[in-house]
């Protein structure tokens, strides 16, 4: 048996790590994930809340292993779009949508699609960090337990791996069983990221995830995104253009519920095709 080693958890190493485990895990399925490309594609999405037409004919594609920034003035529908990806939007009063969103070639609007399977694939990071009302340790294991990982030793390993992955391990290793609410806001946000990573998502959805944080914590999160993109597709809603300039590989510009322009960051920032995009980038409106 190979020695267990801690390293940055990538989906590839995850699969390796699992191979040491008792048989309650389906190894073959995880092996399969290794080479799989994450794929998210939206076609002709229209979304209404009561009478309001919020998202209009949205079609786009999210590249894997890239940071995709969704930019646009506030109220243009960025958060709504993000919440549609994992169908958290379903709980909204008066919601109606049509079109389709394909995640790894599964239509998430299909009646047969298990909504929890879709959500498991998407780690969510909200604007204000929202730790679960339990200990640091339990915050990370909560998701794992939902998906059937019961082995205590394995859970402890996951906690350590994920806390290391977000650079929180050294800061909290002596108080893993302290309430998560006692952490600083910046630490809480990293904990939330670790908690999301622990259920092995393919995508990380972040809605202005740094806007409530101090500059140093923000920088920390941004650096994590850059590091994590080798294993995940990261979708980041931001209304600070500077952040998009710093870390975006791919940019989607939205305005009044429509996708105006989408493409590689260089192209959008240096050579926008649309007049609206150019005006927005010049700061004519925000």
């Amino acid at each position, binding site marked *: 048996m190979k020695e267990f080693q801690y390293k940055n958890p990538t989906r590839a190493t995850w699969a390796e790590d699992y191979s040491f485990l008792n048989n309650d895990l389906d190894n073959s399925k995880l092996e399969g994930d290794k080479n799989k490309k994450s794929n998210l594609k939206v076609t002709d999405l229209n979304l209404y809340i009561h009478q309001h037409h919020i998202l209009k004919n949205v079609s786009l594609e999210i590249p894997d292993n890239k940071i995709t920034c969704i930019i646009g003035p506030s109220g243009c529908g960025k958060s709504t779009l993000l919440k549609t990806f*994992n169908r*958290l939007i379903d*709980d909204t*009063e008066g919601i109606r949508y049509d079109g389709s969103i394909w995640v790894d070639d599964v239509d998430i609007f299909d009646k047969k699609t298990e909504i*929890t*399977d879709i*959500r*498991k694939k*998407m*780690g*969510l990071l*909200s604007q*204000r960090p*929202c*730790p*679960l*009302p*339990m*200990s640091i340790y339990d915050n990370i294991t*909560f*998701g794992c337990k*939902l*998906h059937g990982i019961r082995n205590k030793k394995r859970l402890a390993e996951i906690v350590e791996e994920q806390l290391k992955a977000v650079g929180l391990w050294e800061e909290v290793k002596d108080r893993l069983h302290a*309430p*998560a*609410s006692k952490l600083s806001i910046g630490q809480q946000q990293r904990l*939330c990221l670790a*908690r*999301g990573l622990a*259920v092995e998502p393919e995508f990380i*959805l972040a809605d202005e995830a740094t806007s409530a944080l101090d500059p140093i914590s923000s920088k920390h999160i941004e650096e994590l995104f850059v590091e994590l993109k080798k294993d995940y597709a990261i979708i980041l809603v931001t209304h600070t253009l500077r952040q998009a300039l710093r870390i975006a590989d791919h940019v989607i510009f939205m305005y009044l519920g429509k996708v105006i322009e989408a493409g590689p960051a260089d192209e959008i920032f240096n050579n926008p095709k649309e007049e609206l995009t150019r005006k927005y980038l010049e700061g004519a409106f925000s």
Partner: protein
Amino acid sequence: MRLKFIEERIAKILMSLASLLVILFVVSILYTILKRGMPALNWDMATKIPEGGYYNGGGGGVLNAIMGSLFIVLGSTILGLLISIPVVFYMNVYLSKTSKLAYISRLAFDVMFGIPSIVYGAFAFSIMIYLGMRTSLGGGILVITLLVIPIFIRSMDEVAQHLPKDLLDASYSLGATKLETIKVVLLQIAPGIATATLLSVGRAIGDAAGVMFTAGFTDSIPTSLSAPAATLPLSVFFQLSSPSASVQDRAYASALILTIIVLIISVLGRLVTTYFSKNKI
């Protein structure tokens, strides 16, 4: 001096006067109970059941009522929680903020809250007659459960209505179903559950009218759910009704025991609340 400073000062005086008034009220009740109850309070009161002729000055104590009250409180608290938590969870996690069913339910629980316990007692009594049941511990627990359910639901609901949407979303986005999210919800509203329990224990242990017809009264400690059960408030009432001053003093001693039990439960409850609040975000 500027007007707002005068306002501030007057408001402060009024508030402290109001607080003083409340404290005075509590202290004078305690004083009366202590003054008349202390001399009559002895170990027998809390450890013995009434002997023959107790209500005419004979020996013994009110252990029958202490145990009866504790059984009823325990039973109704457990039953009440088992019924209320699912209701609160359903209203706040499954039903939307604008749901008519939730609105009507809240209204109904408010009305239930205001119904005097004698009405619950009479209602339960008529059902018991219909079923051929006699006055019993079980009957008392049922009626007190009815009495505390609206307290449980409304005070937990008050906390649950402020559940952060982000918190539920966080749980769902990890792949939890609504049902699996109940753990998160319970932990978040745990302080509310503890407060609700304290409030309802207070009401349950102090109620006399509801248990009068349903639990009955007896000099022995109930040994089964179908045996009648004495309760402290009724015991106080019967002793107070006695013409003998020494028996009346024992009524005050029993009231003192009741107060001490409530005090102990409250202190324990506060400790538990603090413990459960630690994880709340």
